[in-house]
């Protein structure tokens, strides 16, 4: 369908009047300029919101970990330490960005750019709500996977460029881990696409309903397992929690960004946190019904949009909480266990799920388990939606 | 009954499948092979019975027929050959007779051939033969008949030569094959002539009987001439030559007596009941052609001469089977005589009755021969002079043989009398009506009847009556017990030699009204296809081969027995009157024949040897079968054909070989020498020498190119690509 946030706003009167005003003022047809401005504005808002959420995420991580370990988190800076992350940000800017002697200067600076660009690129397709999606591309999920593979490359180059053994090892392991866990993520994503019948995120979400029983995760047993595979893969892909081997403090100092300092390190961290948000957001979109609000409340109106936004954010932050929760509960995996888990367990399960969903769809003409059990009689005509 | 292919085809195909299967398994599973062929013929019998019941008892209408056709091959408008089946009353009766006799003969031959070393092989050919005969009876066109005709010829050849160890058997089989072949050649010529005329008349060539009748009715055959002779006569004559060849009529009868070399069941089936009958059946089918070609008198004379001649030769025969062979020839002569004089119905009846009692005669002769075993020569005895008084030894066979002899001699109450008397009656009628030329056949017919009665009873008295001449042989033959495969077939056949089956009245000729069978079924069903009656063939519908019967099922008007067969009142009276005279005459002749034989051989009043030396010249002629064999072998073949061969050979060798082939040789030599010289000078010196130099040169260049440098190869590729850009 390829609508975007601009198309959503274009429907309003004031937008048209604004365009007319600008065209008289500038003389030439200001429509494209208007579109650009709107996109720029929307993108700016999204990036800032993401940066804030990332910052809050660091704060939340510290707070939750403290809470889990029965201690107080940061509460000095601002009320309950809420603006702790701003302080960190300023600190980073102040810090000196050292480039190691034998490092490859060009790649050293390029690595964080690649990471951040990759992550921000993936924000275009994250579906905050039916209207507020930056641009609902036809190739939504597929584009997201492509762009997020840039991050893997960025991390590896970071590790390679800083020319130190720790960074090198960290970079290698990170790259290996990211690219190998991308496969289970992609294949379990495939089973959702199988159900929804389209790649763009709005089709994926429209195919699910507000109520939990409409979500893909409960659609059939295969997608149920698929969700967990997706989630584990997502964790590994963002080097989080049990899989944070690359920047494992105890072993590799801080992995691929050992040599990084100052703003370059800040952007690596920022990219990582945003990517966690993106991954959990996509998990929500694919499996947990995205921005669908129960009882069909979400509609076209502004209020409907905000309700959908609320639904999306609540689900994503819930997942975020689980991610952070994992970090302080699960021990770190050994490297070969990490790899065996991926190739010998997750990938076969993911492929089995894909084939299973296929057979389920073929067998039950796309009806979810719930429909089969409860509405087999009445809604037989409806078919899977 | 609804006729699909399935209800008719099995009759022909079952024996054929039996043949196909047995051909492979006969060596190892002889018993099963025999079982299969007996079962097969039994199957055909059942199907024939079904058809017979539907035709004779069900429809009982003269113009009730089944005609299914399929296109065998279609080479465009000029040559489209349709094969198919055509069944009418004639075929139904014929089918029943053939399959019935064949089945009984199969059963008998399980007894007769049991100790034969090639027991299985015999049955293989018997099955093939029966399927061919049934195929011929059922087929709807002359070409189909011709094909089955040839297969039968082959089977008779191989069955006659069954005991191929014996030299004469081999010679006899070849002789049989060759003589029938002569007849078949003319038959084929006849078919071609008929095909051509039908094509000229109806635009599409065909030899189907229906089409022939239609063209006849339309007058397509009239006023066509072939080298001056009317075409229809030539065609009819040619086809009749086939009958002469196959049914061993006057000029080509030499092969049948020698065919007795084969095993007796084979002669029973082939040379008594079916194959020879096929010739007569063919003439019956093309009767309108004969009538159109006004050949009837010629046919009558052929029949009469054969009947009389064979009867005379049979007088002097000492071998049991020889007597029967000549009697077959004479009876066939009677049938052809019947056709000639226009007694169509009687001829066909005689064919059926003769098949029954002649088969029974041959089988009983076989059982006699089989039990007379000479210990010295370890061979079966066939000469009557060594037999005598066997009736006490073989009562059942004696009973069967006696009934059949009575039938063949034309004694009332028996089938022979019914059919032969009618033929003689009609012959007499035609003689009285049309005068002059037809007196010959009538007189010869009556004299032959007398001779038949005499030599048949001579045979009976010599074999069964009187005291045994070869005592030692007599003691050896053990008394006959009632065995299922020896006597039962005989008794069944004897049952059917009784007259009342075929005629309305008990004695035949309505002398006594038989309460059960009110109407004369044979007389009414078989209708003589005169030219006038062929009209109904014009609009005859034929159906597609695989179509289920879509004929209108409204029952046809049942043809009832009209005593004077549609003749005017006083004409019918005249005919009956003449028939009465004929009947009385033939009864007198029959009994006088029997009496004479009795006097000669039993009472000893008349001494046969007196007659022999009284007419010694004739006796020797009869012994040598009127020197026909010698005439043919010495005269026709030695003097005629061989000379012609030598002439052709001389031409071939002398002129053709010398010039065409040898001349060519010289040219070859010349060319060879020339190329030799060219080869040495030009090629060897220039080509061979120069070649390697060039190759060496190229080698150097190429070696440098293959330097292994990948990028160099790549540059070469790019250069080629660039040059390609130039070309666009």
């Amino acid at each position, binding site marked *: 369908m390829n609508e975007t946030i601009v198309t959503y706003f274009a429907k309003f009167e004031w937008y048209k009047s604004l365009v007319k005003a600008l065209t008289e003022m500038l003389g030439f047809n200001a429509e*494209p300029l208007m579109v650009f401005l709107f996109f720029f504005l929307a993108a700016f808002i999204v990036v800032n919101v993401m940066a804030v959420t990332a910052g809050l995420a660091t704060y939340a991580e510290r707070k939750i970990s403290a809470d889990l370990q029965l201690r107080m988190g940061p509460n000095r800076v601002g009320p309950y330490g809420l603006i702790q992350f701003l302080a960190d940000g300023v600190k980073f800017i102040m810090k*000196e960005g050292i480039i190691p002697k034998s490092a490859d200067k060009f790649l050293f600076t390029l690595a964080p750019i690649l990471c951040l660009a990759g992550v921000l690129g993936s924000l275009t397709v994250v579906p905050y709500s039916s209207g507020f999606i930056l641009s609902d591309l036809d190739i939504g999920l597929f584009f997201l*996977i492509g762009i997020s593979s840039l991050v893997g490359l960025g991390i590896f180059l970071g590790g390679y460029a800083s020319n130190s053994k720790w960074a090198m090892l960290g970079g290698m392991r990170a790259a290996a881990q990211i690219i190998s866990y991308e496969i289970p993520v992609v294949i379990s994503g*495939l089973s959702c696409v199988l*159900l929804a019948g389209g790649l763009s995120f709005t089709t994926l979400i429209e195919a699910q309903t507000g109520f939990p029983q409409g979500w893909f995760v409960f659609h059939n047993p295969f997608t149920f397992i698929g969700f967990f595979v997706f989630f584990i893969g997502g964790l590994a892909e963002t080097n989080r929690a049990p899989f944070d081997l690359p920047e494992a403090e105890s072993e590799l100092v801080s992995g691929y960004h050992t040599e990084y300092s100052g703003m370059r390190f800040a952007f690596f961290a920022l990219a990582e946190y945003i990517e966690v948000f993106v991954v959990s957001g996509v998990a929500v979109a694919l499996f947990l019904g995205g921005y669908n609000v129960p009882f069909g409340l979400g509609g076209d109106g502004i209020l409907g949009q905000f309700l959908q936004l609320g639904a999306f954010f609540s689900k994503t932050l819930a997942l975020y909480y689980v991610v952070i929760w994992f970090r302080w509960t699960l021990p770190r995996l050994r490297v070969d266990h990490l790899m065996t888990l991926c190739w010998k367990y997750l990938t076969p399960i993911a492929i089995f799920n894909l*084939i299973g969903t296929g057979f389920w769809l073929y067998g039950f003409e796309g009806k979810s388990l719930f429909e089969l059990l409860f509405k087999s009689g009445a809604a037989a005509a409806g078919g899977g939606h | 009954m609804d006729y699909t292919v399935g209800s008719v085809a099995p009759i022909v195909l079952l024996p054929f499948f039996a043949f196909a299967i047995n051909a492979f398994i006969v060596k190892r599973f002889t018993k099963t092979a025999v079982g299969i062929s007996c079962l097969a013929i039994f199957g055909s019998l059942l199907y024939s019975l079904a058809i017979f019941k539907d035709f004779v008892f069900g429809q009982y209408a003269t113009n009730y027929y089944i005609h299914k056709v399929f296109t065998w091959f279609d080479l465009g408008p000029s040559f489209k050959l349709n094969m198919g089946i055509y069944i009418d009353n004639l075929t139904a009766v014929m089918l029943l007779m053939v399959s019935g006799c064949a089945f009984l003969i199969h059963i008998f031959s399980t007894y007769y051939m049991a100790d034969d070393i090639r027991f299985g092989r015999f049955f293989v050919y018997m099955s093939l033969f029966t399927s061919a005969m049934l195929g011929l009876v059922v087929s709807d066109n002359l070409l189909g008949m011709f094909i089955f005709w040839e297969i039968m010829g082959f089977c008779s050849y191989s069955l006659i030569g069954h005991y191929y160890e014996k030299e004469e058997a081999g010679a006899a089989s070849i002789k049989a094959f060759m003589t029938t072949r002569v007849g078949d050649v003319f038959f084929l010529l006849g078919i071609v002539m008929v095909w051509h005329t039908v094509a000229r008349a109806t635009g599409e060539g065909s030899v189907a009987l229906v089409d022939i009748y239609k063209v006849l009715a339309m007058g397509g055959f009239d006023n066509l001439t072939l080298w001056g002779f009317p075409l229809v006569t030539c065609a009819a004559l040619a086809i009749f030559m086939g009958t002469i060849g196959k049914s061993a009529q006057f000029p080509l009868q030499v092969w049948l007596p020698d065919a007795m070399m084969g095993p007796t069941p084979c002669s029973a089936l082939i040379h008594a009941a079916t194959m020879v009958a096929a010739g007569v059946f063919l003439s019956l089918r093309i009767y309108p052609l004969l009538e159109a070609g006004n050949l009837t008198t010629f046919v009558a004379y052929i029949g009469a001469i054969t009947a009389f001649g064979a009867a005379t030769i049979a007088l002097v025969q000492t071998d049991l089977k020889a007597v029967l062979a000549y009697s077959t020839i004479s009876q066939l002569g009677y049938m052809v005589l019947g056709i000639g004089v226009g007694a169509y119905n009687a001829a066909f009846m005689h064919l059926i009755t003769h098949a029954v009692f002649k088969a029974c005669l041959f089988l009983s002769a076989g059982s006699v021969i089989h039990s007379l075993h000479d210990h010295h020569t370890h061979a079966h005895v066939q000469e009557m002079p060594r037999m005598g008084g066997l009736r006490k030894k073989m009562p059942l066979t004696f009973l069967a043989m006696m009934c059949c002899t009575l039938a063949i001699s034309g004694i009332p109450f028996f089938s022979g009398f019914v059919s032969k008397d009618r033929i003689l009656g009609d012959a007499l009628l035609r003689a009285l009506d049309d005068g002059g030329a037809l007196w010959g056949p009538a007189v010869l017919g009556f004299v032959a009847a007398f001779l038949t009665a005499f030599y048949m009873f001579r045979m009976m008295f010599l074999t069964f009556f009187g005291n045994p001449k070869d005592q030692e042989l007599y003691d050896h033959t053990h008394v006959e017990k009632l065995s299922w495969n020896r006597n039962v077939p005989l008794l069944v056949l004897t049952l059917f030699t009784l007259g009342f089956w075929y005629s309305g009245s008990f004695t035949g000729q309505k002398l006594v009204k038989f309460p059960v069978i009110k109407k004369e079924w044979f007389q009414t069903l078989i209708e003589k296809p005169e030219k006038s009656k062929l009209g109904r063939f014009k609009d005859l519908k034929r159906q597609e081969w695989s179509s289920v019967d879509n004929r209108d099922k409204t029952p046809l008007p049942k043809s009832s027995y009209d005593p004077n067969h549609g003749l005017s009142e006083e004409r019918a009276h005249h005919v009956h009157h003449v028939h009465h005279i004929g009947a009385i005459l033939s009864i007198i002749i029959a009994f006088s024949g029997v009496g004479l034989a009795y006097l000669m051989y039993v009472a000893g009043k008349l001494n046969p040897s007196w007659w022999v030396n009284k007419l010694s010249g004739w006796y020797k002629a009869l012994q040598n079968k009127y020197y026909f064999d010698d005439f043919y072998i010495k005269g026709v073949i030695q003097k005629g054909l061989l000379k012609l061969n030598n002439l052709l050979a001389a031409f071939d060798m002398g002129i053709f070989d010398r010039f065409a082939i040898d001349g060519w040789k010289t040219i070859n030599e010349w060319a060879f020498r020339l190329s030799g010289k060219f080869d040495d000078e030009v090629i060897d010196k220039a080509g061979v020498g120069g070649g390697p130099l060039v190759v060496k040169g190229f080698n150097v260049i190429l070696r440098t190119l293959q330097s292994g440098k990948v990028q160099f190869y790549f540059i070469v590729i790019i250069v080629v690509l660039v040059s390609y850009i130039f070309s666009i």
Partner: protein
Amino acid sequence: MALEKLDVYWPILILMAFGVLAVVGALVVSKIISPQKPTELKRQAYECGEDPVGDAWALFNMRFYVIGLIFIIFDVESALMFPVVSVFKKMNEIGRGGLVLVEIVIFLFVLIAGVAYCWRKGDLDWVRSFQTPDKEKES
């Protein structure tokens, strides 16, 4: 209407631009604000205080390449699978789902065969761990 067909891709460009500008801007600002006293010691690669020995790039090991190899094969497979899978629902509705399913299953099985081969041959094992109870991994 407001949007041309290609305008849909605006956000990608804008966000990527944001990414680049943010990093470059931040570096410029930090270069201005933060102290820039690169000393020899500070610029040394960090090696828990020890002075760095040797070159960092010699440690690479073959198994990373095998992982990359298997990744790219599956990557391509998923690239091919995406359109087929996204079309399956529509095909299923018009009744030809079975055909597509068979195609997908064949496609996957051929690849699974490859993975099974690698698995059996021991390519997937990350490290020849010595405790592996079964027979020593022969070649």
